[in-house]
């Protein structure tokens, strides 16, 4: 019997002490952290994350997405929001951080959908950036070199260099920002189309939410064009809900990366579960190992729960058998 048991998950997550190469401050209390890593760097995939010790003083780790993983280096982007990230911001090159990772099921292309619309907001940008590079290097069947559009939103100054876009946005584009707005330099240099949105009035950026910019782009496409598109998004909950609403409106597949408080990050504590629709029922899935990327159209958002009586003891659940 034991031969039939699937134990592929075993040993998939490494524990690694990683030396800080740089911990760089960007405006708006945002930081870009580069670490030396062998195992995690080699195994990381877009959308996967690490669980790291910001400081030995803290009893718990903090989950953080990977922005880049190559040649023995991993990079992260984080915002100082509380005690842990504040301590992390004080770390200097040469110091070590203990990480476990890479963790989770990340972004993957959707079959039959060769065009990928990637939407990132705030510190949700890292996995989107990672996925864009990954798609360019590993184009899914039917994709061309210009089958990616990255739309990024932030109310804080963007934590990366921007420039007037040189890579044109694919599709039938009319909006001025989509035609010749600003782009993320790193992506633009690699000929990956990107555009920016903000309500803070930054130059070259669409004035509004990134979801609105996505809508402008989708509105300009004809039906056959749109049927080739899949949405992938990571960012604040309101942005993700807007992306799922867009996906419903245009009938597009939509994958979103979720955040939830975590203790173990390996599937052991059920601290990070979210409700996912399955058939006519609901299953509890763990953001850490069943996600963090889920089919957005199946996610039950807290805002929906508040509108119905969804006391856990009243519903008759379909529960994930792995936990």
């Amino acid at each position, binding site marked *: 019997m034991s031969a039939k*048991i699937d134990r592929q998950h075993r040993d998939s997550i490494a524990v690694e002490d990683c030396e800080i190469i740089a911990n760089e401050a960007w405006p708006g209390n945002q930081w870009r952290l580069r670490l030396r890593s062998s195992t995690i760097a080699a195994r990381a995939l877009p959308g996967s994350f690490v669980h790291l010790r910001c400081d030995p003083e803290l*009893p*718990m780790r903090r989950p953080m997405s990977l922005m880049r993983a190559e040649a023995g280096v991993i990079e992260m982007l984080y915002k100082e929001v509380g005690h842990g990230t504040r301590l992390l911001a004080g770390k200097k090159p040469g110091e070590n951080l203990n990480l476990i990772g890479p963790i989770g099921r990340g972004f993957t292309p959707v079959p039959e959908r060769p065009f990928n619309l990637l939407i990132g907001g705030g510190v949700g940008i890292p996995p989107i950036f990672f996925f864009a590079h990954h798609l360019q290097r590993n184009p899914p069947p039917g994709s061309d070199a210009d089958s990616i559009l990255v739309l990024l939103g932030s109310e804080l100054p963007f934590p990366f260099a921007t420039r007037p876009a040189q890579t044109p946005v694919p599709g039938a584009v009319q909006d001025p920002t989509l035609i010749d707005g600003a782009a993320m330099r790193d992506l633009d240099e690699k000929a990956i189309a990107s555009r920016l949105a903000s309500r803070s009035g930054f130059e070259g950026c669409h004035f509004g939410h990134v979801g609105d910019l996505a809508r402008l782009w989708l509105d300009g496409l004809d039906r056959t064009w749109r049927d080739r598109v899949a949405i992938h998004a990571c960012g604040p909950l309101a942005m993700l809900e807007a992306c799922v609403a867009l996906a419903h409106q245009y009938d597009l597949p939509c994958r979103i990366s979720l955040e*939830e408080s975590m203790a173990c990050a*390996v599937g*052991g*504590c059920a601290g990070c579960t979210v409700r996912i629709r399955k058939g006519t029922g*609901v299953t509890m899935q763990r953001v850490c190992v069943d996600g963090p990327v889920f089919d957005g159209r199946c996610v039950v958002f807290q805002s929906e729960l508040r509108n119905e009586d969804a006391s856990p003891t009243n519903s008759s659940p379909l*529960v994930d058998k792995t936990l």
Partner: protein
Amino acid sequence: MTPDPHDRRSLRTDFCGLAFDTPLVLLSGCVGFGEEYTRIEGFSNRDAGAICLKGTTLHPRLGNDPPRVRETPSGMLNSIGLQNPGARAVIDEILPRLDFSETRFIANLSGSTVEEYADLARCFDDSPIDAIEINISCPNVRAGGVAFGNDPEMSQRVVEVCRKETSKPLIIKLSPNQTDIASNARGCIEAGADALAVVNTFMGMAIDVESRKPLLGAGQGGLSGPAIKPMALLKVHQVYRVAKPHGIPIIGQGGIVSAEDALEFMIAGASAVGIGTALFYDPLVCVRINEGLVDYLKRHRIDGIDRIVGTLESKDR
């Protein structure tokens, strides 16, 4: 990563007739259903003498609203709310996937009525599980749980009915949220407990002062981790005095993160020690604690870990 088994021979111990390779027990609710931590490279179920599976109820439960976990000074609060797929799914789909050659597996059962506890014990008696732990101390459910555990009469009734349903080793997990844990322990022993787990989490809460809302979705939860260690240790000390004359062993737990912590609990009277929250910070903590225990025994020229159980010297001697 697993140290040479010969080095670890001194850690072998017998617990209620079960052979434990080391006195470490991975605690319920921290390691899912036994496979989750094996994702970690260097982690092995063999580094623990036993693993307590996630708290299981008769019917599936979705658990509480998020957030369910929250860091607190030197510890954490949780309000998972016993999310689990229900006894039938655990027995039919999860137990067959476990590798019983790696370690001992203990079911952790929670009912909302006395009858449910009996039904659960009966279901698991007819399963390959090595032992049954009765959780009468879960702070995160409305019915049963800690409400039973803090009521000595109810505790005793739960133990009695479960005892009738199973011949497997029966471990009763006690609540620290009660005035006289020792007398409750005595009642459980008289009702047929084979062992005691001391203790479950302490009830607690945390508030976001900006929104003036509780930080846990459920409002309150259970406190674990180093923050509770001195209190948990005292509970073990108190329970050991009543358990010792009956030869009833204790799984001491609450905030253990090092070999020294584990030794404190064993000296206070625990035959085995639980590791829960510590795993979240250091998933390879068991390897480290096992090594520390072996080293301690060598330094003190003691040939078996059992020999230190309950060896607390009184201060005035």
